[in-house]
């Protein structure tokens, strides 16, 4: 896919004081306080304090069932916590519905891609644009009120589609795209709203290695363009490659955070997530390959 090699420029100096779970950041975009979410007897999320740094790429990692997606849903207004408060740019956004959060510049994608199958790729893109006059019922009846804006939105959509190499597909139904193309479309659609904070739920899940490279480049581009990225991911290579900051969640709690290379040496993280055999080939563990034979 993309030929240009991504050379991620890591940002440092994000935190104030010693690195520990809940450490203060120099410039947080999101601050979470005492957020608690319980499903029956199961505590899915129990975060005491967490700050997401602005303008950089933050990865949220953790074992299956750690509460990553639940935290995502809470932050994006798709679920509401039992207790707790959180702010976006210093403004409290607890209990604000999802669509208002999106209008405030915080946009998300989903773990299971949500392409709008029976809309064309271009229509999918146009839907992402904010403050469209023609989306109000009365105004929609009078095309002269929104035709000009519609043209601008279409232009912008085509530019983005070109960037994501989907422009040849613009008149196809989104349902005819492959899984990887849908991931690209969902990300491109999210960018139509010129977000400040992009939240990606497992952007690489089920994507082949070549497409992964191109998705990585797109995510790095977001940072270059001044957006903040928060993403959930399992692939540790990818996390260490592009993330400036890593937050590790286990059993709903933040167990560690820090720069990727430091976090991966943290014994708590190794125990909870990476597993003690992380450097060893799977064949060695199962006994099919003898150690050191490669």
């Amino acid at each position, binding site marked *: 896919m993309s030929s240009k090699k991504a050379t991620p420029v890591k940002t440092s100096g994000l935190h104030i004081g010693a690195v520990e779970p809940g450490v203060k950041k120099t410039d947080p975009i999101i601050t979470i306080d005492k957020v608690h979410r319980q499903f029956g007897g199961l505590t899915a999320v129990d975060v005491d304090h967490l700050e997401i740094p602005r303008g950089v790429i933050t990865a949220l990692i953790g074992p299956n069932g750690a509460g990553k997606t639940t935290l995502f849903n809470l932050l994006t207004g*798709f679920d509401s916590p039992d207790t707790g408060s959180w702010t976006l740019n210093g403004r409290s956004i607890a209990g604000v519905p999802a669509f208002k959060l999106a209008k405030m510049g915080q946009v998300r994608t989903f773990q299971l891609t949500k392409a709008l*199958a029976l809309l064309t790729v271009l*229509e999918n893109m146009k839907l*992402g644009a904010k403050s469209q*006059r023609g*989306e109000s019922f009365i105004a*929609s009846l009078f095309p002269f009120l*929104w035709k000009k804006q519609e043209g601008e939105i279409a232009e912008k959509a085509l530019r983005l589609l070109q960037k994501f190499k989907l422009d040849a597909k613009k008149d196809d139904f989104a349902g005819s795209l492959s899984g990887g193309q849908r991931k690209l479309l969902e990300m491109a659609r999210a960018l139509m709203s010129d977000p400040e904070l992009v939240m990606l739920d497992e952007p690489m899940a089920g994507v082949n290695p070549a497409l992964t490279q191109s998705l990585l480049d797109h995510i790095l581009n977001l940072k270059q363009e001044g957006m903040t990225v928060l993403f959930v991911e399992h692939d540790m290579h990818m996390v260490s490659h592009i993330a400036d900051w890593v937050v590790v969640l286990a059993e709903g709690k933040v167990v560690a955070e820090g720069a990727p290379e430091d976090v991966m040496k943290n014994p708590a993280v190794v125990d909870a997530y990476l597993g003690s055999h992380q450097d060893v080939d799977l064949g060695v563990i199962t006994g099919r390959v003898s150690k050191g034979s490669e």
Partner: protein
Amino acid sequence: MDWGIILSNTAQSLLSPATMAFALAALGLAVHFGFAGLLNFGIAGFMAVGAYGYAISILTFGLPWWLSALVGIAAAVLFAVVMGVPTLRLRGDYLAIVTIAAAEIVRLLFLTTAFEEVTGSADGLFGYHASFRASNPFPPGTYGFGPWSYNEVELWVLVIGVVLVALAALLVWRLMHSPWGRVIKGIREDEDAVRALGKNVFSYKIQALIIGGVIAAVGGIVYALPSAVNPNVYMTSLTFFVWTALLLGGAATVFGPLLGAMIFWVLQAFLSSFLPALVASGILPLVSSAQAATLRFVLVGVGLVLLVIFRPQGILGDKRELTFVK
């Protein structure tokens, strides 16, 4: 067999108040189901609310006919809001159950003897035509030709019906080719994705429910214009006939519901003349002519099954959609 009568009955149904009422109701349902993805099985309720709103306003409150029609529309808006606010947060299949129940509640309220003075109970309402006929601009006489010959009253009903169908089709076409319609279609595909893009999904769903409901209520009014309002018309079977017309033409199209309503009524008219004639001439054995008339519903049912299997997008639907049926 008298082919003259059979064909003339069939031709007449192409342009009858019932056909136009169905076209409007199916168009309203297209807004609900085809475009917004709201599984509404209570379309008969919207038609009833429109028809009763119209008739009651004239008979009980003595309003002129056009104001009464507006009352019928307002009643449909109210019905949509009352039904929508608590239920639109439900998933599609639950909404279907609630709407079917809501339509039955409406029908039984009109049927109960408790409000007989206003609703006429089982007799329904009739004799509300004076105001409508007084405003007829056509002088007495016979208009049209062949099977399409009408007196001045019938012509006035048809003109109003055609104008309303055209206005409704224009409205739906305009809406669905605007950014508003794009949001509505997005909601049909995946509400959460649309919500994540900053659209107030609940508000759009209520708007869609109101607009579709109003168009269906106008259909109910057109149904009531020439004749009477009878609670037995607004049974669940009416809902399913409207669904048949909609699926026949194409659920996510503007002209599909109109075409579907025409085909539905032309077929009904043809079969209800043709089947008894077959029995009378001894070609169709084992059934009486009364049974033969009901046989048409069986055939319509079989037709619907075949349609859903072999052409789920309807006659005017986009063929590409077939590949991605969920």
